């Protein structure tokens, strides 16, 4: 593998995506969009892994990305099941409306 020259810009892109995702989780009130934003964050770290793997000329970064993909898929499947159940119980996906516990 040949090392990419513009490694900084790739890392910068990953950091930017990560921040977009983080802002989404914090600002959005709809659970579906929060889950989407988390996916953006996970993929941003996957991009950083691929960049790092390419930088060192090792396959490890891509191996890690495959594991991240698998984990994200498992998580989304459980997340969507929970979201269906929430909609069933509350007829709403607004995080403020489903809140029952506090203290």
């Amino acid at each position, binding site marked *: 593998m040949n090392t990419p020259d513009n490694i900084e810009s790739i*890392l910068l892109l*990953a950091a930017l995506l*990560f921040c977009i*995702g*983080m802002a989404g*989780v914090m600002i959005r009130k709809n*659970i579906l969009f*929060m*889950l989407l934003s*988390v996916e953006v*964050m*996970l993929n*941003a*770290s*996957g991009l*950083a*892994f691929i*960049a*790092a*793997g390419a*930088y*060192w000329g*090792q396959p*490890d*970064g891509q*191996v*890690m990305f495959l*594991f*991240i993909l698998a*984990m994200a898929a*498992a*998580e989304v499947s*459980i*997340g969507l099941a*929970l*979201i269906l*159940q*929430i909609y069933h*119980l*509350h007829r709403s996906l607004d995080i403020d409306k*489903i*809140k*029952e*516990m*506090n*203290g």
Partner: protein
Amino acid sequence: MSPSDYICLLPLIILALASVIVMLVIVAKGSHKTIQFVSLALFALAFASLFPEAVPLPHAVPPLLLMDRFGAFVIALILLSGGVVCLLSYLYFEGKEEGPKEYYLLLFLCSLGGGILAISQHFISFFLGLEILTIALYALIAYLKSRPKAIEAGIKYLVLAAFSSAFLLMGMALIYMEVGNMSFAGMSGAIRDAPSLPPLFLAGLTMLLVGVGFKLAVVPFHMWAADVYQGAPIPVTALIATVSKAGVLAVLIRLFLALEVLSFPRAALGIGLLAVASILVGNILALQQKNIKRLLAYSSIAHLGYMLVGFVPGTRQSFESLSFYLVSYILATLTAFGIIACRSSKSEESELLKDYQGLFWSHPKEALILTISMLSLAGIPLTAGFTGKFYLLLATLEPDYWALAFVLVLGSAVGLYYYLRVITTLFGSYPIQENTPSLPVTSFYILCLSLIGMLAILTIVLGIFPSPLIEYIRGIWIS
């Protein structure tokens, strides 16, 4: 892989196979009782295979895993917690609206994840173990899916755990970018000669700590803990408080020891601040809780703070005291949740403090066991909790760490208030209204109660004769 590798990983292989076996038993239409007995037998089998005579420890299974005596010790704690939770689950889930069978499968996956974490020495096994653990936990927390609180707790845990996993992964990626190696040993070679930590590495380590902090629920990453503890079924709450904390702490200890991060003052300061914040905030928030599950959630935040104190000196003695404290914390927590599970009826969990008003006069055994567990959590002499706290304090009694020792003592003093409030409730006057239906006493109830009673006795025995366990732990850390 050589045969000795398989022998030494046998406990984890059994746990992985166990989830498949449970699935087969479900397909064969086994009853809840059958599945319960099969699961208990499999936990016992995994425990028995933990200390192989044929393979001397430490035994590395490169590149991902390293089975040493510390790993075996933590896996033993995880299997113990898993077994106790498994037994409690029968009592809790029998007659519940949800079929309890698939629950056991997820329980095995959870223990498997914790076990992998305990022996991992590579970022990939760290990540995989953590995700096996947390993804199984998502489903476990929301297992009673018709209860709004369980679903709310499940989605909260899911969003925050995935959020923290993203932080963890980004941190790992940055560290990998800096050092070009993902195994703990390889990383330490890359930064050992550096006069101070490289900025990219420091940024990565901070993000990694944020991720791990969420999983351990230390302040300021603790906001999910109380809601999830309250919403989850009681056995699952016990699982979160023991298995997931033990596994994550073990991998954190491994990472820090391999990287020798604690010799850099900035890293030690960061951990110290997390510890102080957790002790103070956890104890203060616990003061006004009326729900015993939430109270235990905040108390576990404080206890994780105490354990982080053991990280800061970075000496062998401090890790010894940390290991002892972990044992005492797990014993006391399992006992407390065990009694709460025993006291809960089919439709309602007895989680409010007033449900325990005057329990001693109606159910003296349960009340005494809960009292012992509260005393141990509070750190009263003659319990394991006191010995653990004493050793932690000894490890911090050095000129540099007087502030930590002070906060440790202050936190314990504040904690005394709410633990004693639980105890005074137990021994208080019996409520006048007599409309609480008495729970049926089944053979499983007696079995559970005697097991929890044994854990409580063990807590006291370790408080009076701690030396065998201390010798054992010392043996772990010398090698």
